Structures are given as structure tokens and as C-alpha cells.
């Protein structure tokens, strides 16, 4: 098999954004991001990030994946959350159903304890949402499809973009 398609409908993203907004507010965080485990951004809440969110998503997924393997090496089934603490900015990363990573960025206006507490609650809620998505659309969460001429139009764009 191939890796498959993982799709989010508008209603899925609306439910996810509500959770992220609640988490951002209740934790006193700056920004909250939900990232697919293969490194793709699903949704953002809070302050508009001033950094490259694609790069952030990719590096967070890599960070989490590497730490998963480190956990296995020392005999732990997983590290379900990671904390990176900086002088001003810090972040907590947490697993959601092995399908996504919840990343919460915060500063000294809140505390690590509060953020972790709210993250645990949010992970439970997001787990439920992902469960619904997968239950409705099967294991890969595939959506309604893109239509027959999508590939033809994309092929023209590919030729245009990747020309010498």
C-alpha cells in the first residue's frame, strides 16, 4: 500500500480550532498549533506566528519522531509529551493518538504546570475528534476526493513551475 490520504473537512477543522482556541486561552499560551505526524500543519490558534510555520511543523514532527525512538531505546513505550524551555519562549509538544502533535508556545505570562494541565485536557478532546474523523472516514481519514481533472490541471502547473 501507499501512505494514503489524510483529509480534514471544514467541520473537522472547525471543531479542532475551537479546542485549540480554548486551550490557548485557558493555558495563557501565545500560540497553539496542531501538526500531522508526517510534518504538515493542520491548524493554528492564538497569536499569528512570526516564524515559518511549515519549517516549525516539519522540525516538530522530526523532533517527536526521534524522541519516540529514544523512548523505545531506553525501554519506555513513548514520551507522550516533550518540553523545550528557553529564556523567554518555551513550548510543550504532546502526542494526539499517534496521528498528530499538539504544540503549545508560551512565555513567562503563564507557567509550565498550567500549560501541561490544559494540554492533557485538550489532548483528550482532540483524541475524541480524531476518533470521530477516523470512524466516519476509515483508517486513513480519506475525504471526498478532488475530481477527475485535478491531476491534468496540476500536471500543467508542474510543467510551468519546474521549468529550466
Amino acid at each position, binding site marked *: 500500500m501507499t501512505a494514503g490520504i489524510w483529509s480534514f473537512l471544514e467541520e473537522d477543522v472547525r471543531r479542532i480550532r475551537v479546542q485549540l482556541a480554548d486551550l490557548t486561552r485557558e493555558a495563557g499560551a501565545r500560540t497553539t498549533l496542531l501538526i500531522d505526524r508526517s510534518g504538515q500543519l493542520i491548524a493554528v490558534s492564538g497569536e499569528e506566528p512570526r516564524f515559518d510555520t511549515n519549517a516549525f511543523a516539519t522540525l516538530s514532527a*522530526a523532533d517527536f519522531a*526521534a524522541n519516540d525512538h529514544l523512548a523505545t531505546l531506553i525501554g519506555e513505550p513513548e514520551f507522550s509529551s516533550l518540553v523545550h524551555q528557553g529564556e523567554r519562549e518555551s513550548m510543550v509538544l504532546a502526542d494526539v493518538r499517534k496521528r498528530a502533535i499538539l504544540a503549545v508556545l508560551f512565555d513567562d505570562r503563564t507557567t509550565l504546570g498550567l500549560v501541561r494541565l490544559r494540554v492533557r485536557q485538550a489532548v483528550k478532546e482532540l483524541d475524541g475528534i480524531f476518533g470521530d474523523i477516523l470512524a466516519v472516514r476509515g483508517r486513513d481519514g480519506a475525504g471526498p476526493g478532488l475530481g477527475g481533472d485535478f491531476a491534468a490541471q496540476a500536471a500543467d502547473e508542474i510543467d510551468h513551475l519546474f521549468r529550466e
Partner: protein
Amino acid sequence: MSMINYASREINCKIVYYGPGLGGKTTNLEYIYERVNPSTRGKLISLATETERTLFFDFLPVNLGSIRGFKTRFHLYTVPGQVYYNASRKLILKGVDGVVFVGDSQIERLDANIESMYNLAENLLEHGYDLQRMPFVIQYNKRDLPNAAAVPELEGAMNPLGAPSYEAVAIRGDGVFDTLKQVSKLVIRSLS
């Protein structure tokens, strides 16, 4: 795994450049970074050692533009080619939609190419993916070197599946976009 977000109208696809060490995977991405319109690509991120060998991966996002109302983006990754970085290679393959195998045409590197090809199939299988059903393109790089093996010999040794293949001299860009175009189209076709 391609991700289609119907709320933000975005499609993201992951393409991984695989192959033996010093074969030219990073060089492919560097050429693409330099040559595509800067407004269509993001930053090139390289997690490399001090001697510029890839330690974890290189990453380059490229925006294809809006197709039928969907902003379509390719995420291009390389893996570290050196044998002992297999754990990192395996991680990068998670959710992959298409693979480019960058082979080194030098006759002395034939065994390294074959070993890397087996390693690719094994690592994909660990994620539950089958190379035979994956959008897959082979690039025979370094065609300008005097010790490059003949293409039929490389095809016989490395391409039993009959995947599309391209000759390349990545350092001067020959074959780089042909390879990328082919794998991109195969990935897009797999979405429809």
C-alpha cells in the same frame, strides 16, 4: 501521507529523495531551491554535520499554486545516505507520498546503490508501504564522471520494477527538474 485540508483548501504532499551517501540528494534540493521562483518556495532547512553531511534531513517546501481552488504544496525531503543513519532515514519516510532514488552512476558505487535500494524497500515496509505501489522515480546521477557505468547496466541492477528513470548531473542541474516533474505528477495522480 497526502493531507487535504478542506477548511483551508490546502493539499500537502511529501516527496523523499533517497539513496546512498554522497550520491547528490542534497544537491538536487539545492538546485531546485536556487532555480524555482523565490515566491513559490520556502526556506531550505538542512540538519547537517559541520562537514555538511546530512545528519537528519534537508527540507524544502515548494508551492505549486492553486489548483481547482486548492493551494497545493510539495514538501521535499532528503535522508542521510550514510549506512549508520538508518534510524533517521526510517523516520523521514513516515507519511511519504513519493520517492526519488538518487543513484550514484560511478561503477564503484553500484553495490552501495543496491544496498540503499533494499534498505528503502525494507524501511517502507516497516511503515506498511509497498515500494511497488508507491510513486517512484530513479535518477542516475553523476553521468558526467568518466567512471560512470552504462545506463543499461544500472537499469539491470537497480530497476527491476521498471520505474521511470532519468540521467542527471545534479551539480549543474541536468535532469533535476525532469525527475521532480515526473515524481510530482505521479503523486498528484495518486490523489485523484
